[in-house]
């Protein structure tokens, strides 16, 4: 009787591992099934199998999906999945080259992609914050240990000033990374389903008002990056039209292009 809690604990532990193993196996199995489907030429089946993998991401998964969409001439979705793959494996040169080709297919020029694609390193972001905090606390510790009142040593003041300047610079860098991260969370890829094979998709209109009848400020090619505009409540600025369509206010990275876009006309990079 005394051993019952212990046995229950072991049972719970083994069950949880069992669930984990099954979960892991099913994801891998679906992935392999999709690779096999692609190998046999059933690209549509391969896409469907990949999309069956829920709440799990890996760089090869998104890269393979992007390749499939490219082969199916759905270049905006190819761009979207290459962006996702690059989020997980930012240094992969093959993904970068393929993304560049997909962007070419979308008809996005080199100049406009340079202006509109964020460069962001999650590692740098993490280390900038850690460096900032270490610099701050190390300065405090040294200040406490070496300060002698009354302060007469001029070099002491010089070191304190240097520390403060360094702290401000480091904070500026961290803040920039933070803003970039926030932008990335709001990034979407303009999407238009392919109509004609091997041709760039139609352009997406950025409308003056949230409605189909409204005129467009400008238009951008599908596959372009846009950023959700935030309201005062830090939520994306959205509007639901009387016919039930949901519209979001967006702008390009440079801020030059701005307008309302329908929900089905974009796909978020981070969902």
């Amino acid at each position: 009787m005394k051993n019952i809690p212990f046995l229950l604990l072991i049972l719970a532990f083994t069950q949880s591992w069992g669930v984990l193993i099954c979960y892991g196996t099913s994801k891998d199995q679906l992935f392999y099934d999709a690779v096999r489907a692609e190998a046999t030429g059933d690209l549509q089946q391969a896409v469907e199998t990949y999309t069956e993998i829920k709440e799990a991401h890996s760089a090869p998964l998104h890269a393979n999906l992007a390749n499939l969409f490219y082969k199916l001439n759905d270049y905006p979705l190819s761009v979207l999945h290459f962006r996702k793959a690059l989020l997980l494996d930012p240094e992969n040169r093959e993904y970068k080259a393929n993304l560049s080709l997909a962007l070419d297919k979308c008809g996005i020029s080199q100049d406009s992609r340079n202006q509109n694609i964020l460069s962001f390193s999650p590692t740098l972001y993490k280390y900038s914050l850690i460096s900032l905090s270490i610099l701050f606390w190390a300065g405090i510790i040294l200040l406490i240990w070496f300060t002698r009142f009354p302060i007469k040593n001029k070099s002491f003041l010089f070191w304190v000033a240097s520390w403060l300047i360094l702290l401000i610079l480091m904070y500026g860098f961290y803040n920039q990374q933070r803003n970039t991260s926030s932008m990335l969370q709001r990034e979407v890829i303009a999407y238009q389903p392919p109509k004609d094979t091997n041709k760039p998709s139609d352009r997406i209109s950025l409308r003056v008002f949230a409605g189909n009848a409204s005129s467009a400020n400008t238009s951008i090619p599908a596959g372009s990056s846009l950023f959700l505009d935030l309201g005062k409540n830090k939520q994306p600025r959205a509007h639901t039209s009387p016919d039930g369509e949901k519209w979001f206010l967006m702008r390009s990275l440079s801020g030059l292009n701005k307008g309302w876009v329908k929900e089905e006309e974009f796909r978020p990079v981070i969902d």
Partner: protein
Amino acid sequence: MPLSYYRFLLIACFLAGPTILSFGNIRVESSFNPATITLSNASTYQIIVHGSQQAPSGSVPSVKGLKFSSPPRTLRSASFINGVPSVRFELTFTVTPEKPGSFIVPSWEIEVENKTHKVPSANLQVLPPNQKDKLRQAEQRQQQEDLRQAAFLEFSCPRPFLFKGETVEAKVSLFLWDRLPVTRIDQVPAKNADGISITELGQPSEERNVRKFNKTYSVYSWNFGLTGAITGNHKITFESSIRVRIRNGRNSPFNNPFFNDPFFGFGREESLQVVSNTLDLEIKPLPNKDRPTSFQGAIGDLKINSNPDKNQVSVGDPIRLTCTIHGSGNFAAMPAPNLSFGDKFKVGPPAFSFSGNSMTKQEGSQTFEYIVTPLEAGILEIPSISFAYFNPEKEQYFSLNTSAHRIRVDPGKEWIAPADTTLSSAPKQAPQKQVQDLFQTDSDPGVWVTSLSLVDPIHSASFWILQVVLFLTVLVVIYLRIRKRKSASELLKKKEKVLLIKIREALKHKDSIGFHRILSKSIRLRVGIACKHAKTHALSSPEVVELLKSASFSKEVVDEALELLRLCDELEYAGSVTQKTDLDSTFRKSQSLLKKIK
């Protein structure tokens, strides 16, 4: 005659001697010293050339049974004998006897100052070794044996012969005596033999307290795969080197390895070569008789099986056919079995994987994974795979066949590559980048993550743990700082109290000089505390007063302090005690002043 004159004469003779005296008569002597020795001892053969300091030339005749050291030691000397200056040149050889008996170095010729002189003959009597010599020789032999036993390699092979291409698991062990101060193993054992190949020697297994030759050893053993490569008889040895720490100076482990306390002195490291025993190994050729046609070089005791991953597929669907060979054998040199499945299947090149002891690759299982694609529909049979091997124990060939596998192949849908259709319908464009080469499908899922969302590091637990740790460090630093400051002020207070006690004692004993010296110290200490100056004892009285002024003390306090310090200085340094002072009133005055300086 003054002493300095003799000195001068002596020095002049030494300097001019070789020139002046070289024209004198030259006489040559030779002798053994001692003239009688035992076999285990050495003697010296000495040639003395009187009347010259020039180096002679000539060669000592060889005497069978005697070994002369080369080059000889030389000595030039000059002396006065009964007031007559004399010079000579000595040549000394160390002579080691090789057998007992009476030896004569015959008379031989030597050339001195371009003139030939005769060296007289000399006799050496070598007696058989006595008991002491025998004991010494035994001790030397024991030392050499001990040194050989201090570190040695032992190489073993499970069989006295191998067949060409056969792999066996061999072992080489490095025995290190626990008393030998080994610092590291410089080089893992390396083979000194052609005709065999061995696998890489990885990390050794270590065994402590192994008893052998009445000694305790640490043993490092490497297991490896040994494969016969060239037929014939081969002598195999292994060689390694270790670093041992020895004492500086005369004691060396090579002369006496059992020196005392090597690590606690300033020793140095030396390399010691360790060589294994020699093993004779014969590599035999494989017999030609009854050799099966499917034999591809597999040698050992092996089993084979094959297994497809599915039994029902569509045309074009890949089937993973796994063929596993397991047992013991030459897995490193084993080729994949040849599959001939005819026109019904397309077979890709196999993928290899070995599981088992990867260091020796002698025992385990080798898996060959083939991708087999059925090319037509129906009930197809994956034929059996033939595999032949040679068993070195039984010295004969064996042929094995796996079982055949029936596969149901459905017709499936015919797929037309979308790229082909688009290209045919699309207008011809200028050739672009090589897209097909870039878009490769990853066959490995990689690392799974649950979300693509960027986690703000400020919300991570590790970041806040780091902050807490750093904050606690700050608290610790503050505590240490306060403690240090408190102890410093307490120390000063204690010092003040001690000084006050000393002042009172001086007052009691009417020690005017001592009283004023301590009083001066006390005032300086108080000023130091009040003005936060750490070294007031190093300041002069005017400087102390200036310090008080700068700390905005009243003029009255400054004047009082100046007066008291001046009085103290006068009595302490002027050495005058004629001026009678009222110590009691000075003490009261000083206490009142010290109260004001706070």
